[in-house]
């Protein structure tokens, strides 16, 4: 069971920050909280995380991370394996609740709601903050039922025609409607990998989320399917807020407006994607994105 202790620092001593230790960050006067280089705030934030620590047992996986996720922006989280980017992403809709030894400290808000409030029901939260995973995971049901599942269990519709409308609109937004409209009763798992991932995105948006979290959504897809999903991300940004974890630097550069670089559990740098990929301010960020990391 998850132990959420927003006001306690726990018993584990945080390690010396990697941001300053052992590396020579560029001279910069504009450091934000915890030494993170760049502006952690967004002009119109949809989600705000402040002083977030995440522990797996005694191990500190996320160390004092603060970051805003702005409305209608795509923010990319990058960093080497084990840097905490996926852990942080999973904090944003309390997916870490499913891990017994995981403990989250600090504050994460969706609009004005503290999502770790003890009285909060996580089921509607996960509808508001949806998630798309690395590997497409459609239910072994029909294409129609995959998309209709969320609206049904959340009671979002009163009639079959309303549900039909939601399914169609969701598949349209996910760019899949034209490919599947004549075979909605076929099983979702029979689609190609790229189509399955877009079906999962349709399933996510069917419950009208505010935020969509994507954890390496294209890592199992070929370049064409990846391009389709990236195009979709760009279109979805008009209506949703999107946080994406990716190992592909080029993908982060292509799809996001802001990029956050994580390293050993710390948020080293955050800034406009254009700036991060042309003139990053922290040496660690630069060494990682240029492929110099040992």
């Amino acid at each position, binding site marked *: 069971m998850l132990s959420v202790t927003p006001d306690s620092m726990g018993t584990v001593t945080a390690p010396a920050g990697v941001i300053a230790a052992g590396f020579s960050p560029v*001279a910069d006067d504009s450091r934000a909280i915890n030494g993170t280089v760049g502006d952690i705030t967004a002009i119109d934030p949809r989600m705000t995380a402040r002083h977030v620590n995440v522990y797996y047992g005694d191990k500190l996986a996320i160390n004092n991370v603060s970051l805003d996720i702005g409305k209608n922006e795509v923010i990319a989280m990058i960093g080497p394996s084990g840097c905490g980017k996926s852990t942080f992403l999973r904090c944003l809709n309390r997916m870490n609740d499913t891990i017994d030894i995981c403990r989250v400290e600090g504050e994460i808000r969706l609009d004005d709601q503290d999502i770790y409030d003890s009285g909060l029901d996580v089921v509607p939260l996960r509808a508001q903050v949806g998630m798309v995973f690395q590997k497409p995971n459609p239910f072994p049901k029909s294409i129609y039922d995959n998309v209709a599942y969320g609206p049904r269990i959340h009671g979002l519709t009163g009639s079959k025609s309303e549900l039909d409308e939601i399914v169609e609109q969701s598949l349209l937004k996910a760019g899949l409607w034209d490919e599947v409209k004549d075979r909605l009763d076929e099983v979702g798992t029979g689609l190609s990998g790229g189509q399955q991932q877009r079906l999962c995105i349709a399933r996510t948006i069917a419950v009208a989320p505010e935020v969509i979290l994507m954890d390496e959504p294209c890592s199992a897809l070929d370049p064409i399917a990846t391009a389709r999903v990236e195009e979709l991300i760009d279109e979805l940004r008009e209506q949703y807020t999107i946080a994406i974890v990716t190992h592909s630097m080029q993908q982060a550069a292509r799809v996001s407006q802001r990029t956050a670089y994580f390293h050993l559990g710390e948020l080293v740098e955050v800034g406009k994607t254009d700036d991060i990929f*042309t003139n990053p301010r922290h040496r660690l960020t630069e060494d990682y994105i240029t*492929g*110099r990391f040992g």
Partner: protein
Amino acid sequence: MNEMTDGHIVSSYNKDLNHLHQLVIQIKDLACRQVREAARSLEDEDVELARAVIVSDREIDALDIKADEEIIRLIAKRQPVARDLREIMTVAKIVGDLERIGDQARRLARLTIRFYDGDVIPPNRHLLDDLNKMADFVNRMVEDSVNAFDDLDLNRAMDVIRRDSIVSDDFRSALRRLSTFIMEDSRSVGHMVDVVLGLRALERIGGHAKNISRYVVFLVKGKDVRHKDLDAVEAEIISTLK
């Protein structure tokens, strides 16, 4: 070890970037030699040397094309970002300026041929005084600007940028001196026009050295200072050095 080109996990990337970097040094050496020999051909009235300078310009043109090909290949293969991207863009810009420095050296060499080839009346030697002096000065600027690129030396880059105003002053002073020659002997007007074109070529070489130095600021700082005034460039550099 070059901080801008080395340190990648993929060692062939280091090799490609290093090769590109060395190509800049090679083109700079060639361009400076061209300017030096073009000026010497004038000094020594050596038409053969001038012809050799004109022919050798093709070597720079060939290296210019080679650098562009390598840059295109690197971008296609490596998708460079951050300082790798700035290094590659800077190389592309520098090579462009060095190629034009080679063109200016060729123009200077053509003066030698015009003045001393065949049955023509050569110019008064005093008309050429400023050309040699200025050629030395701008050639040092080119050397220093490319060395600043090689060493990521912002101080040296700034020094070259400052020296460009000396070149402009020298150019204007030389024009004034030439105008006194015309007043004394209007028959020298044809030679004078040629000398002005030579001075102009050298003044442009100084300008190219200044451009190269400004690219160095972009390379190191990531800030484009190409069209900024001297004070703004200085402020940008000082903000790094303090």
